[in-house]
């Protein structure tokens, strides 16, 4: 199966409802869907492609990224392709070397498209492009977002740090003291064993390299040091978040009267009822959703029980705390 046909159908399915693909946007107002590419449009695209795709494969002028892109970015752009009016279409002018903007011809550099046709390199005649534009009707763009695009995003390193401080009842002072460098405060780590992290762009900035590196490990960038952020779910994130969540949960649980995790009145015992109440509370606290009783039971059985010993529930509480932090509903929003 020619992969190309696949590309034809996808935008078409998105644009039109048929018996085969249901619409996801019934609630959208009128003129939501876009004019689909006709077979003649496809023929023109195929003809132009070898001479244009090289530069026009992505971005704001990525006309040849897909049929969708060709239709939506080029055919539906009235300046470039004016339906019914070839001479009023910048595309045609460019192909003939009569461009009116910054570029006088397409392709750039040497020969125009028209010249490529006359020497036989390009197969689709300019007349065909002309006729195609002549025969086009009104074009409309689909105003809906791409329904296959991701609908979640990963928390940034900054958001993670703030969320962890807030939800674990920890703060800057748990990890750093201020120390002066040239007379101005920097964040001096209280100890590497606490796994401190701080953005190099923050005030106070981290004094130890490794505190900034751990921030980069969560995918944080730095404009001051020109380090790119990485908001993908990367191996470094997974490893760093595992280490940080466990250590920080342990630290938070070790604090007396940590009302972030155990508000007044909440009991911290080994009693299953108390534990489950905490798990239920924590699901809202960390994830912003209330686990059902079934979910709570499952978490209790799968994580808390294996990690608890008759004399010590601390690792079990650390484990479920870390579970919530690494949960996809925590990492993504």
């Amino acid at each position, binding site marked *: 199966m020619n*992969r190309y046909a696949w*590309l034809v159908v996808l935008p078409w399915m998105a644009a039109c409802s048929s018996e085969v693909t249901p619409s996801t946007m019934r609630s959208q107002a009128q003129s939501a869907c876009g004019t689909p590419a006709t077979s003649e449009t496809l023929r023109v695209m195929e003809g132009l492609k070898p001479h244009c*795709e*090289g530069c026009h*494969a*992505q971005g704001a002028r*990525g006309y*040849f*990224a*897909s049929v969708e*892109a060709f239709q939506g970015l080029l055919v539906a752009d009235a300046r470039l392709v004016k339906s019914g009016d070839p001479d009023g279409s910048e595309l045609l002018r460019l192909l003939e070397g009569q461009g009116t903007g910054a570029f006088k011809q397409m392709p750039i550099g040497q020969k125009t498209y028209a010249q490529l046709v006359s020497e036989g390199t390009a197969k689709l005649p300019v007349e065909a492009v002309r006729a195609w534009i002549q025969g086009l009707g009104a074009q409309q763009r689909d105003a809906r977002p*791409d329904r*296959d*695009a*991701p*609908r*979640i995003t*990963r928390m940034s390193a900054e958001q993670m740090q703030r969320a962890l401080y807030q939800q674990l009842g920890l703060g800057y002072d748990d990890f750093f003291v201020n120390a002066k460098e040239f007379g101005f405060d920097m964040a001096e780590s209280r100890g590497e*064993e*606490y*796994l401190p992290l701080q953005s190099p762009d923050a005030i106070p900035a981290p004094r130890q390299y*490794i505190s900034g*590196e*751990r921030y*980069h*490990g969560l995918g944080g960038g730095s404009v001051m040091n020109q380090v*790119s952020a*990485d908001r*993908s*779910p*990367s*191996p*470094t994130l*997974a*490893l*760093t978040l*595992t*280490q940080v969540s*466990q*250590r920080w949960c*342990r*630290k938070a649980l070790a604090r007396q009267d940590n009302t972030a995790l155990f508000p007044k009145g909440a009991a911290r015992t080994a009693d299953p009822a108390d534990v489950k109440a905490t798990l239920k509370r924590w699901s809202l606290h960390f994830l912003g959703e209330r686990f059902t009783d079934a979910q709570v039971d499952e978490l209790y059985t*799968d994580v808390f029980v*294996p*990690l608890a*010993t008759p004399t*010590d529930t*601390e*690792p*079990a509480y*650390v*484990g*479920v705390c*870390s*579970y919530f932090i*690494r*949960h*996809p509903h925590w*990492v*993504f929003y």
Partner: protein
Amino acid sequence: MKLSRRNLFQAAFGAAHVGLLGRYGLPSAMAQSASGRPTKMLAIWLVGGLHWESFFAPMTRAGIQKFIPPAQGGNYAYGYNPEQVEHLDRSPVDLMSSGPARKLRVPVYWNWAHPADRSGNNPVVGNAQVYRPEGYVWANPAYKLYEKAVLLVGADQGTAAHASGLIASMSGVAGSTFRAPSVQAVVANAMASRFPDRPLPNVALGGPLPMALGLPALANPTLLSSSASVEPTLSDRRDGTWYGLRARKDEPDLAFDGTPMSGTVPATAVDAALLKAVRRERGTSSAGTDGYLEQLYDTYKGASRTIRRDMLSVLEKTPAWEKLKADPAYPEDWMACTGYADACGTMPSMGDYAFALQLLKSDLVSTVNLRATSIEGFTFDSHFVNGQIVHAQYLRIALEMVGRMCLEMSLTPSRSDPSRSLLDETLVYVYSDFGRTFPKVGSDHHPATCALLVGGGIQGNQMIGGYDERMEGSPMGIPVRLVEESGDIATRTPTSQDVAATVLRAYGLVPGKDFFIPGGYGVFDGVVRS
């Protein structure tokens, strides 16, 4: 082929390439035939853009006289005369031949009779220069490192901007972001099915990360800025983090869609519960959402394996500098200096070569990306007045360092196949952001650059390509023979795409099938051993 991955590629790339990239999800056909091919990569990024032409001499006699300042500088040896240029193997040099395929040749700054000499005057240049020993490691007849090295000359990066050039060197295509996966990630992915016990396929020791773009999550780079990062990131040694949480069970390995796969995942109770929770998310929202969740899923699995592998213990038992120091000419505490002793520095000041050695010797990784400089962290973006002079001093030292690294690797037997060395099973790929304008016109950025390949799978003692000596100022490259994706031979000026394709071809990866680089690409003819 899953829709979700396809959509991910589309998001990154444009659907025209989806069909080809989609193949990355399948095991590579080359997994079987591997004799003589490398299975690891050491990618060394010399930071800032290099005056390659100050260390190597690809030009003809006329070109040298036209573009290179005459030999001068005394202790701060700079520039060279045609008489100074020799083959590294000391065979007779023909400086009239313009290539494109020739033997490796360099301006010789050292004293062949006493290579460590750094005080004698060099009569070959009429005593205008004092001997400089750095660089000799490449010519040392005791090791013949040149037999394993190829220089690809005059490749056009398509940019003169740092970040863009770096991405061009890593992936073949210049740009502010990656438009193709880095060669490091491609190789890591290709090796993953053959070497599933390498827990970190793609490791970066600093610098911008060699991104995997749309490749499977396992090929994503892990940042380990130094060996000190291993313990807090990759191990479960610290009680503060791991007390009571270390127990792992071998859970059945399931794909994101629940399909059973062979093998197990050494998961803690938390890991297993999380994997279950992520699997449950599948199909609850859009295809793109599934794509993200699948990445998280695979990454969590990888993290479980990594920690269980206890890389820290393995690394603790893995030596770094071990073999080469038996040669008194190459001690571990080597201190290199520019000039008389203007600036000096030891090996660690040039980059974490020691940690890279440990990682490669330990068989824990497939690709290591090393950010390297000259002594005391000197980077090569020498825009300043007399920059090209200073640059030349530091570059000799940095390339001596690279040579010593290669020697250590060549003296270390491969763990999986003792009949070959670690250097044989690794391709060392040395690159920079771009080249620099030729010395007589200063030290600005210049899109024509070189790449140095050392080690496994390549035909050594070669210099392929050259500079167009008809140009004024800073020449671009000359045409070379390239094998295109179709198999046809083309003769044209090489680009960053061609360098990347050549690197990948050394591993036996098939162009168009196992990898694809936008913009057209060919493999330098005669570099990869078939």
